[in-house]
Structures are given as structure tokens and as C-alpha cells.
């Protein structure tokens, strides 16, 4: 069974985000080839990285992109302010409650509302991930000493 694991732990800047994007595209092409649309799969990681960069409170992340047979698992961990951590968890829980048609409708509604968040986000990332992965997004948060929160989100998608 083919398996590959790409891990990154450290500072997340725009430059690192782009380098990671290029790396996972290359890894996906090498491991998946034409089996599915590589850009769509990479979009899952890109949206998670985008979100982490926007809300990370200490600049560091832990990122994993794991391919095992027909399963792709993308994980990201970062530190965030309590408000941002709670909002992430609530957003993921809301997205996980939606059926496929509700996801499409919510995505359209959010895309066309002409509004951005205070940090420039569109509020579309988790909706897009759920549409592309066709499964629930797993998320946990926990308080850290000093008042910030540890956040983890994980997406699994079957490539078969």
C-alpha cells in the first residue's frame, strides 16, 4: 500500500505557505497522479493553512499531509486567541451539521454577500473543505497556560 507523509512544524509566513503548497502539489502528483484532481485536494490543505495563518496567535503551526492508499488525511494544529478558537470550533460544527445541498447553498450565499471578516477572510474555507472532502471535519480546542487556545482540525477524504 502506497504511503507518504509530509510534515511541517514551525513558523507560518506567506512564503512558507506557498512553499508548502508547491510541495504538497508535487507530492500529490507523484503519489496520486491522474487519479483525481490534485488541485482540488491541495485546496483542502491550502484553506487550512490560510485559516491558520490568519488566526494563529504565536506564528507557529504543525501541519501534516498524509496519503495512505486511498485515504488522504490533512491535519493542522496552531495556537489562537480564545475568541478565534471558539469561532473556528463553532464554524466547523455548523458545517458538519449541513447536508450536501445546504453546503452548496451556504457556500453560494457566503460567496455573494460581498463581506470580508476583520482579518480578510471570506468565511468560505470550511464550507469549501466540506464540499471537497465530502465528509465531516474533525476539530478540537483546549486552553493553554496564558489564555490562548490550542486548536486542531483534521480532514479525511477517500480518493477511491
Amino acid at each position, binding site marked *: 500500500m502506497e504511503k507518504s507523509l509530509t510534515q511541517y512544524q514551525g513558523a507560518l509566513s*506567506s*512564503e512558507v*505557505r*506557498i512553499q508548502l*503548497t508547491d510541495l504538497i502539489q508535487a507530492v500529490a502528483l507523484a503519489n496520486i497522479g491522474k487519479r483525481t*484532481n490534485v*488541485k*482540488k485536494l491541495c*485546496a483542502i490543505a*491550502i*484553506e487550512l493553512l*490560510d485559516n491558520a*495563518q*490568519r488566526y494563529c496567535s504565536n506564528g507557529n503551526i504543525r501541519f501534516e499531509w498524509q496519503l495512505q492508499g486511498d485515504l488522504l488525511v490533512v491535519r493542522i494544529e496552531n495556537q489562537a486567541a480564545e475568541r478565534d478558537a471558539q469561532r473556528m470550533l463553532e464554524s466547523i460544527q455548523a458545517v458538519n451539521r449541513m447536508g450536501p445541498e445546504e453546503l452548496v447553498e451556504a457556500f*453560494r450565499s*457566503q*460567496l*455573494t454577500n*460581498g463581506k*470580508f*471578516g476583520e*482579518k*480578510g*477572510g*471570506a468565511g*468560505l*474555507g470550511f*464550507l*469549501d473543505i466540506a464540499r471537497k472532502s465530502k465528509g465531516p471535519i474533525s476539530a478540537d480546542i483546549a486552553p493553554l497556560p496564558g489564555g490562548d487556545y490550542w486548536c486542531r482540525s483534521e480532514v479525511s477524504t477517500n480518493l477511491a
Partner: protein
Amino acid sequence: MKSLLIKGTKSTPTVVLDPTNDRYVFAGNSLPENAAEFFEPVIQWLRTNSEGLPPGRNFIFRLSYFSTSSMKAFYMVLNLIREASLMQGKAHTISWQIEDDDEFMSEAAENFEELLGMSLERVQLTAEQATEESKKIERYVDAALAA
């Protein structure tokens, strides 16, 4: 009418809104950390100037990848072009250039068409053609910014 020229980076697109030379181009990757901030001058330029453009301009979109926050910004850009077309009674055209049957960009075009009720002209490019076009527009922006 003043032009707006933004040189692209690895994470942000090249933007050319240049009525003097009749060139309107969005090209490259669009993954800015803050899409609202990056696209603010673009949206503002279109709000101020799009109705004053001569009818029948061609807007070229040759994008490699964009994040969902950029997708929202491109929706706003396309909507402003659509509204200007409706005001003038003669449509501007959108050339949506797609490299090597890129399914991601084809689907994005379909989504925009459905949401905006406007058609985007699909132009298929080989990887070599896309690279050549990107080099041309980079040279164009470099020369214009140096002038």
C-alpha cells in the same frame, strides 16, 4: 483615467487595469493572506472607472490557483464588470484562460457563470502558451511601472 498596475508575486496575482493601452488582465496565483486588503484598490478602481470604459473591452483572467477568499473577491470583480456592461448596453467580454484542461478553473468558471448570469469565454492554453503569456504580461507590467 488612471491605470492600476500590480506586479504579481508567488502568492498574489498580477493585475493590469490599463485603459490607455486597452489591457485588462488578472494573472497568476491568488493566495493573499488578506484578500480584502489586496483587492481593495482593484474593487475601488472598478467602482470608480468601469462605467466610464468604452464598451466591448476584453478582460483576461489567466489564474493558476485561488483561495476561497480570493474567489469572493473575483466574484465582486466580475460582478462590477457585469454591471458596467449592463449600464452600457454592450457587454465587455471575459476571456477565462484555462491551462491544460484545468478542472479546478473550469469549475470555477461554471460557478461564476451560474451565480452571475453571464458567460465567460473559455480559452484553452497549453502549459507553454500559459508560461509565454505570463512572461509577456510580466514584461509589460515591469516596463509600465518603470516608465
